[in-house]
């Protein structure tokens, strides 16, 4: 099940390309992280100056994500070389990460900076960083202060990796919502007078009514009431809804109650949801092709505007929605709602940012001068360099308004979208993997253009403004309850199940079983549903679910003991 859901993005071999993805914990909190202190800029300037006197060094880096090599005369890398005296020699992932690391470990030779993976710790390929950071890297130390304990390896207590996302500071602007929700087309809301569905029933009623009135779209294609995707590793659309409907946050394949994690996929809380879908299916509202469609077909369907609603994470179907926008079908783009079974349940879809543990860079044992490397990373952690890496160069890539706010001209926005231009003018490949500030700088500007409130507002279409005004909301996150502080052991999906262990085998088997029986149950005649469900439950009984739950609970307990701030 999707406990390792986001991690899966990193480790799963997508067959087509063995593509791996990392996801930033991007759903961010309003208040930000009170513990994280903004980095003093004087400090940053100082380190820049000293490093200018350093000799030129070359740092080799293996980046565990695919990317194109920047052009030889890339403006930002050149600036780094001129001012910090560091030439970066980067290799990017092509093919499968696990395979690449396996061979690298077997060969026993590593680049200076290497992408995070627990395998490398086991192979003693990377060195502990905590002393290096304490002694040489004040910026990094300040940046990671709030998550310091979490960064420690669960097996030996050392810090090996510098998480590349999810450590926030200052005011955090959350304008867009990219996480899980039940999505519904804006036209449906408009026609119904902008209601706020709170429960699954209310949501489905909206869809039923609209579908009855509009059997086809305005251009004549039949509408599809509800669809879901379960293709390749993108299975969360089908599997994760029940935990949210019961008010649980995204723990992947388990729900955590009173500190104990348990699998829910075969339990009654899940049955209730799938029974609803079975009803929809038999009414002809559920997409008949839902369980056979591939990702491209899913996106195609969404981009025709025929799909009234679905449960998904926003980033997963964003490409389809973008196509709707480009056809100016704003009414058929989506708003997300945090549905629950009963109004007595409080929704917990939106969660706070999480440090992207076991991601980012580590320093390998082969690095000749770890101190120089950590100093280099520390220098990049200064606000000045962070702005250069994220926004670019002032006057060239962005402008500063009279109020001190950064903005981009239309032309500057355009060039930021040009992949060829970016290869010569941005250092995205390195920036993506290195430690970074998220939230806002000490001068109040957002750390990336997309989060700058004005930039967001400018991107809204008139229809969007009308809708937000009708709800008296400012941003898309206002539809969700503000996330509470994370449990100290949250989230369970980040638990490392350990390759090849009983827990990880059980995890695979559970996913297989769900993907096999859930479609069967949903597509069954209503009177057959219970029988198929029973088959499903029986199949689950054959799996060593306990091994899986035990591993997760053991790790959650460990976190509670080690991560609770003293």
């Amino acid at each position: 099940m999707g406990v390792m859901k986001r991690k899966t993005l990193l480790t799963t071999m997508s067959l087509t390309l063995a593509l791996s993805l990392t996801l930033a914990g991007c759903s961010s909190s309003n208040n930000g992280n009170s513990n994280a202190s903004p980095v003093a800029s004087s400090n940053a300037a100082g380190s820049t100056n000293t490093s200018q006197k350093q000799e030129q060094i070359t740092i080799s880096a293996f980046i565990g994500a695919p990317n194109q090599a920047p052009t030889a005369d890339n403006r930002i890398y050149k600036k780094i070389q001129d001012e910090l005296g560091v030439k970066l020699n980067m290799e990017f992932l092509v093919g499968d990460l696990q395979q690449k690391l396996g061979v690298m470990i077997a060969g026993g030779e590593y680049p200076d900076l290497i992408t995070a993976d627990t395998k490398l710790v086991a192979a003693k390929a990377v060195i502990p960083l905590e002393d290096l950071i304490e002694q040489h890297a004040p910026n990094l130390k300040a940046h990671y202060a709030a998550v310091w304990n979490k960064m420690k390896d669960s097996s030996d207590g050392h810090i090996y990796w510098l998480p590349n996302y999810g450590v926030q500071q200052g005011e955090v602007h959350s304008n867009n919502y990219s996480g899980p929700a039940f999505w519904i087309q804006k036209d449906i809301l408009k026609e119904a007078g902008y209601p706020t569905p709170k429960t699954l029933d209310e949501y489905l009623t909206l869809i039923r009514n609209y579908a009855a009135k509009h059997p086809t779209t305005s251009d004549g294609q039949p509408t599809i009431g509800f669809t879901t995707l379960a293709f390749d590793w993108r299975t969360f659309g089908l599997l994760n809804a029940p935990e949210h409907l019961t008010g649980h946050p995204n723990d992947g394949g388990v729900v955590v109650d009173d500190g104990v994690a348990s699998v829910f996929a075969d339990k009654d809380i899940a049955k209730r949801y799938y029974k609803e879908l079975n009803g929809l299916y038999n009414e002809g509202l559920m997409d008949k092709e839902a369980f056979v469609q591939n990702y491209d077909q899913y996106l195609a369907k969404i981009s025709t505007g025929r799909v009234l609603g679905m449960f998904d994470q926003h980033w997963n179907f964003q490409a389809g929605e973008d196509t709707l926008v480009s056809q100016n079908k704003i009414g058929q783009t989506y708003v997300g709602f945090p549905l629950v079974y009963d109004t007595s349940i409080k929704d917990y879809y939106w969660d706070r940012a999480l440090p992207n543990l076991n991601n980012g860079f580590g320093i390998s044992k082969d690095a000749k001068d770890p101190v120089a490397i950590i100093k280099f990373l520390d220098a990049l952690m200064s606000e000045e360099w962070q702005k250069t890496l994220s926004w670019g160069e002032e006057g060239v890539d962005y402008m500063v308004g009279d109020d001190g706010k950064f903005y981009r001209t239309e032309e500057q926005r355009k060039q930021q979208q040009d992949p060829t231009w970016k290869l010569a003018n941005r250092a995205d490949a390195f920036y993506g993997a290195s430690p970074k500030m998220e939230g806002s700088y000490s001068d109040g500007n957002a750390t990336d253009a997309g989060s700058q409130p004005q930039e967001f507002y400018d991107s809204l279409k008139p229809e969007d403004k009308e809708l937000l005004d009708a709800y008296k909301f400012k941003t898309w996150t206002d539809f969700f309850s503000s996330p509470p502080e994370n449990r100290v052991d949250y989230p369970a999906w980040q638990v490392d199940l350990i390759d090849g262990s009983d827990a990880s085998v059980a995890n695979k088997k559970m996913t297989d079983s769900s993907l096999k029986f859930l479609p069967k149950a949903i597509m069954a005649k209503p009177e057959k549903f219970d029988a198929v469900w029973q088959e499903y439950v029986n199949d689950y009984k054959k799996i060593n679910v306990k091994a899986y739950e035990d591993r997760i609970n053991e790790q959650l307990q460990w976190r509670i003991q080690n991560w609770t701030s003293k």
Partner: protein
Amino acid sequence: MRTKQLRAEPVVFHTFNAVVMILLAVVTLYPFLNTLAVSFNAGNDTIRGGIYLWPRVWTNQNYTAVFAGGAIYHAFWISVARTVIATVLSLFLTSMLAYTVSRKEYVFRKPITVIIVLTMYFNAGLIPSYFLIKDLHLLNSFYVYIIPGLISAFNMIVIRTYIQTLPEGLIESAKIDGAGDFRTFISIILPLCQPVLATVALFVAVGQWNSWFDTFLYASSKQDLSTLQYEMMKLLSSSMFSNSNAAVSNSGSAMNAVQNMVTPVSIRAAITIVSALPILVVYPFMQKYFVHGMQLGSVKE
């Protein structure tokens, strides 16, 4: 054609045959034309589906993106070099080996055949192979493209089978004239084997051209050795990666993605066309060696 053959039977047959062939051509041409159409269609429009034989929103951005990096020009020549060198060497060595095991009197004929054939049915695995390449100092060397795969058991068997259909008398008479096995191989067997050698050359060349995994494993840290296919794999991976990631990291600016004309699907199409075209021209060129019964007639006993 002699006039007496102009009966109804050939007409019916030819009509039937033509219909079958044209149907097949249509069916097999379609996926390629479809890919071509997608490669010239705007990526954000392709997502809607429904592109068949003609682009709906013309763009050359997919190709611009493919050629943007500039690394592919050098990589193209590396690909050509490895393909040509490996094909020539492999063809020569494989057919030489095939000749020896086609000689019924050869003492080691059977053991050699068994040893070679069995290599088709096992695979030692990635890591031991990596160690071997490392120990032979082939890592990050151009030779790693040539040396490891010179002998293909499959190709050897195909050539051997062909040689065995040649009239034995030819070889015997060469021997009687005093030619050794090597000279017989060079001057009798090789020329007679043209059709099968053309076939095997095609197999080897296509295999060489399309391979990227050896670059990935053995030469990935040396840009000078990158091949066209490897550059294409890089591009495809990064487009899939950045596309899925864009939604997250640029969450604010929906406008960004909207104008994004290049999507994984569209770039995959352009990559397929760019990397397949050079090798596609090889086959029509080889077809001239497929001349029915060439030379055989003239040298029959």
